[in-house]
């Protein structure tokens, strides 16, 4: 297992002038090859900004981002494009419908990365698309279709296929299943597990739903107001959380084994503790 992604001391601020606000305050994070790391945080915790910083879509204030041992933070223009054509890291969006071009066929979408890179003729691209489709269990009959004609699960397979087609080492998935039904969710998560197995893919799985990481992630990183407050294995986080925010999260996840809601008193106490630890920040 080699370290694929190494984020260290990452600070990111967004906005201009007086409206500039710090989003990430010194985040450290690693993902090794073949590892699935869950990044959990609530709305506004900075989890999507972290992903965008890793992808070079927002500029880091300070700190470093290394992918496969190569610093990617300072790249601009043509150098950035050339680095991206290498395809070491790819991104899967939350909403598969909006992340697919409605006017382009499944085939064109699946091999867009290869087409951008160049060096394939029409037949070569078609063959590559079929290969990817098989990898993500998409029926080949769907290749000439448009996204509007697919189900939610099929769309997300296309989105994952598009990312996988350029053979990335690291996949960043931003809430990849939260727009999907439970049964579809499972097939997509199983697909990620399979890809991890077969290609040693490292996955950074971003979610607001701690519960969804059980059985999927190897490690969990808890992000709260732009800071990593706890890191541990899924078992450690779920069964023995240490930081009050993590404990609050775990206490808030509903379970089908309890008929009563998580103890309100406990949650209130934890919330006060979190607030105190965040320096009186409003909840």
């Amino acid at each position: 297992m080699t370290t694929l992604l190494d984020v260290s001391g990452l600070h990111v601020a967004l906005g201009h002038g007086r409206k500039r606000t710090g989003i990430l305050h010194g985040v450290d994070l690693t993902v090794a090859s073949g590892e699935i790391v869950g990044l959990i945080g609530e709305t506004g915790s900075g989890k999507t900004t972290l992903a965008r910083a890793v992808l070079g879509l927002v500029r880091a204030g300070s700190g470093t981002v290394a992918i496969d041992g190569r610093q990617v933070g300072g790249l601009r223009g043509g150098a950035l494009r050339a680095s991206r054509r290498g395809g070491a890291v790819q991104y899967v969006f939350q909403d598969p419908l909006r992340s697919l071009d409605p006017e382009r066929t499944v085939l064109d979408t699946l091999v867009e990365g290869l087409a951008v890179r160049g060096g394939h003729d029409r037949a070569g691209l078609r063959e590559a698309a079929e290969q990817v489709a098989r990898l993500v269990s998409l029926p080949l009959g769907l290749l000439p279709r448009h996204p509007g004609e697919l189900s939610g699960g099929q769309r997300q397979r296309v989105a994952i296929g598009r990312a996988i087609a350029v053979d990335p080492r690291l996949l960043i998935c931003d809430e990849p299943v939260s727009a999907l039904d439970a049964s579809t969710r499972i097939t997509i998560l199983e697909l990620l597990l399979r890809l991890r197995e077969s290609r040693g893919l490292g996955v950074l799985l971003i979610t607001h739903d701690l519960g969804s990481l059980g059985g999927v992630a190897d490690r969990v990183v808890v992000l709260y107001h732009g800071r990593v407050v706890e890191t541990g294995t899924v078992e450690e986080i779920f069964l023995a959380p240490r930081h009050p925010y993590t404990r609050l999260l775990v206490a808030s996840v509903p379970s089908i084994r309890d008929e009563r809601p998580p103890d309100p008193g406990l949650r209130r106490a934890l919330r006060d503790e979190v607030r105190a630890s965040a320096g009186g920040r409003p909840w």
Partner: protein
Amino acid sequence: MTTITGALRTRAGVIAATVLAAVLLLAVSGPFLAPYDPLENSAEILRPPGAAHWFGTDYLGRDVLSRVLAGAPTSVFTAFEAVGIGLVIGVVPGVTSVYLGRAYEWITLRIMDGLIALPFLIFAIAVAALLGNAVHQAMIAVGILLAPSFYRVTRAAALSHANAQYVTAARLFGASTWWVLRTHVWSKILPALVVATANATAGGLLIVSSLTFLGIGVVPPEPTWGGIVASGLGYLAQVPYGPVFPSLFIMATVGALNLLADAIRDTSGDHGRARALSRTGARRVRLT
């Protein structure tokens, strides 16, 4: 192209296309169909319509039908010329304003705002005075004034897709701006652009008619639809229906273009998608 073929499946689209096809045919073959020489004077002045002269004759005894037919190419193709010029100087900055940085965006926006503020006819007359009173100079003036609407339409369409997730996905593959424009943005702009072009052509035709009515761009006795209306107006007392025939051609062409624009707008974009869904996919939409 699917939006246009879709529009041709509606009744309004079929009517508009039929009329426009007839007008185009006239514009190409009109001068050859003319039964008389459109410039030939005769002693039979201001005759009412009849078997010899279907639309009657004008104050110099010229056959009005022949003048309308002979004037078709100038009237129609000059409108196309103006729209073509407007397309080029509107669309290119419209699309690029979204991608080429803030300074460029600001400058193009201000230029287009400036053009919008110019009054149409006065600008055209001024250009004719400056560059000489000929049809191409007049069309350059009209084209420049049509450009802002193309600029606005394409910029709005490009802007709404510039930050789409699939564009981000393409950028993460290392795609260039040109790739993004070609594969993702262009197809989203096209329907809006076709509608704007149809509308602008209708507007262009009216402007060309107005200018030729005023004698700008085309010098008499060369026949144009606007010029024929103008010459008819002088003899309303003798031939009250004189301007009706050329006006009918102008109205039919402009009306058909506007009808086509409406039909395309109704069958394309979000509007069209909603319509198509309400017809075929009602169930799926409503269940979600």
